[in-house]
């Protein structure tokens, strides 16, 4: 990617919290990153770490009761603070969302043609049926859906075809920014690979920047330019995907990679314990109770975003800054008492 390119999306210190009886759930807790034109950024982490909240928060699609702070800069506007009606206008032409379960997003009583007509008319009133059909068939073709199926109903499609449809509906406007939240998690491996292929080729056909949320590290490796690793509401490491996979700099990234069962797995590894309760996360680095490398400073001070020489960014005291780490700060934390099953995820 070109260093001089202006980012499409620029997120600064974004926070999202849900009010509950037990207190505020800090689901997104000070997240910053940029997304360049045509770039695919993977967002990975254990379930409950805030991935979906972040994805929805970026597009202003949070449920009632969620509160936000920070900045989401998109084409000169702050998406976090623009009006609801402005957001509604932008969704479609500028911003798109793809969900895990397409069937719940399609109207069973409407033909595919009608879905496209409704979507396009909402933003271009008076657009002709023929114009809609031409635009729809073009995008459906790219998704591998035959034009002969244009007048079918959603239930006449297989799961994989429905997800292609949803992607087609999101892309027919050629939006600049799309969030895809676990788009293949419900699909079988061959169909998943087909869809990943489509998402991977997006940048060639459209100039879309994609935030691809998944818990599957393999998908990140195959489909993403960069990867952001999320833990307990924070992005703990972000960098070029190949680089991060080859040489993870945050202990959480490393342990997540090690615990993933892949074709080259010869022994079982796992991260002891479970991600913290986000109403009351541990002080300092949220990962310190599970971290094999934790030092004294890790339980006392919040780690600071560091840029490493390879361009990777990481929030971990192992990477300094040294001047903030006290005299005994680098002492290893007491040998961690065995985290028992009682704390397992």
């Amino acid at each position: 990617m070109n260093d001089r390119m202006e980012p499409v999306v620029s997120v600064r210190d974004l926070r999202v919290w849900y009010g509950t009886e037990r207190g505020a759930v800090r689901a997104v807790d000070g997240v910053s990153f940029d997304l360049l034109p045509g770039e695919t950024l993977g967002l990975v982490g254990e379930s409950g770490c805030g991935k979906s909240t972040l994805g929805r928060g970026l597009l202003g699609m949070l449920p009632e009761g969620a509160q936000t702070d920070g900045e989401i800069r998109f084409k000169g506007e702050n998406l976090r603070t623009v009006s609801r009606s402005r957001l509604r206008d932008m969704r479609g032409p500028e911003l798109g969302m793809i969900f895990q379960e397409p069937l719940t997003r399609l109207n069973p009583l409407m033909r595919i043609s009608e879905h496209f007509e409704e979507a396009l008319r909402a933003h271009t009133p008076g657009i002709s049926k023929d114009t809609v059909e031409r635009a729809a068939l073009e995008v459906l073709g790219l998704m591998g859906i035959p034009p002969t199926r244009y007048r079918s109903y959603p239930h006449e499609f297989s799961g994989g075809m429905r997800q292609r449809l949803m992607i087609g509906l999101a892309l027919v406007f050629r939006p600049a920014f799309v969030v895809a939240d676990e788009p293949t998690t419900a699909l079988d491996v061959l169909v998943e690979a087909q869809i990943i292929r489509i998402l991977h080729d997006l940048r060639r056909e459209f100039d879309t920047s994609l935030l691809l949320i998944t818990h599957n590290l393999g998908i990140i490796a195959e489909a993403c330019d960069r990867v952001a690793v999320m833990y307990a509401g924070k992005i703990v490491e972000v960098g070029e995907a190949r680089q991060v996979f080859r040489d993870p700099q945050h202990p959480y990234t490393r342990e997540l990679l090690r615990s993933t069962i892949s074709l080259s797995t010869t022994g079982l590894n796992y991260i002891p314990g479970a991600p913290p309760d986000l109403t009351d996360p541990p002080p300092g680095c949220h990962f310190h109770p599970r971290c094999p490398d934790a030092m004294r400073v890790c339980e006392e001070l919040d780690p600071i975003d560091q840029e490493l020489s390879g361009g990777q960014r990481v929030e971990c005291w192992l990477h300094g800054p040294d001047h903030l780490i006290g005299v005994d700060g680098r002492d290893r934390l007491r040998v961690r008492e065995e985290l028992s099953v009682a704390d397992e995820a």
Partner: protein
Amino acid sequence: MPTKPEIQGTAHAPKHRAPDEVLVSMQDVEVYFQLRGGSMARLLGMDTGSVRAVDGISLDLRKGEVLGLVGESGSGKTTLGRALLGLVAATGGEIRYAGQDITKLSTRHLRRLRGDLQMVFQDPSAALNPSMTIETAVGHPLKIHGLASGEELHRRVADALERVGLSPPERFMFKYPGDLSGGQKQRAVLARAVILDPVLLVADEPVSMLDMSVRAKILQLMLDLKRDLDLTYVYITHDLASAKFFCDRVAIMYLGRVVEVGRTEEIFADPKHPYTRSLLKAIPEPDPEKALPRDLPRGEIPDAASPPLGCAFHPRCPEAFDMCGWERRDLRALIEAHWTRHEALDFETERGTIANLDDLDEPSHEAVVAAGRSSSPVDVEDLLHRIREEDADEPLWRGVEDMTLTDGGVRVRFHDGADPRLRPAGGVEVACHLYPEVEPAAGEGPAS
């Protein structure tokens, strides 16, 4: 992948060679589900067809082994697993266990076997009654079989919880499923499954719903249980990576059939069936050097109520050839794929060439592609030739015997093809025409 230094939290699976004593023997097992159809169809006594969920499977399960049933959803894995335990009635074949045929046993006799044969399902939340404490849930099998009560029941539940790592047991006994994490719930389910001291455990996607960081822990627990309790496992999964690590043997399933079966090392080192090869290629691996595969099988698993002719995988198979069972429906898919690749405008002009694609929906080795109202049979022939020229390597053409002009259109005749049976190839067995069935050597065959 980063290297894997040994740190705490590391363990290795004991991979031992499976001994040869057969525990369960399946012969031509079939489970067909009758389709209900609409009330009209039933009133008219129409044949509404059936789903061949398990379609003639023969497999031996050896004592002490982990046998993997691996395949995409709808391939019949769960149904076969349930049939093994008599939880679903087999409509054909035999399942022999301890001198009996499970498919013929009455409910009462089956209940007696329940102690020996246990199943663990994918979703631990659905498997546990939300209003029952963990103690009640885990002790339930002992109670309904009248095997323990009172102090004894309490002690055995505590032992079982201890065994699955829910320790100290007092900490978990009085909790409800809602108080436990996903991994803890699956531990409780495993405790309940082993409390009757079973011989065989059928584990249906036991870790699929769990987070990556917990999967390894539950698999490790299953290995520990197997070693301590002398268990035999059937491990059902769609995840080839965990099967590779966990199983001694794997059976790859597709549409109710086993298409390849053999020792795990052999199947993964040298996958033979094109379906197995595709699956392995398609797994997204966390390896930055591995590129996205280009030659993926097209389409999706077809409807099990009306499976493809010949080899069920042929419509998607990158290596299919004349024998594989080409048919009318494949021709429809081919024409539609052509229109999908082209501009909407070409579709506009070409769609009228063919009268009705729906005519191509019945399974048959012969097709007549009728010309549309304003076109001629020669136009249809031209269209088919254009499609062929676009991609001469398309496997379908290998199955075309001839194309002839008729009054109303073009007749396409396909090779009759055949349904490939499971046959030995190398050290494994595979159901694919790429591997010739060995004729029994002279003198070995039945005397005529």
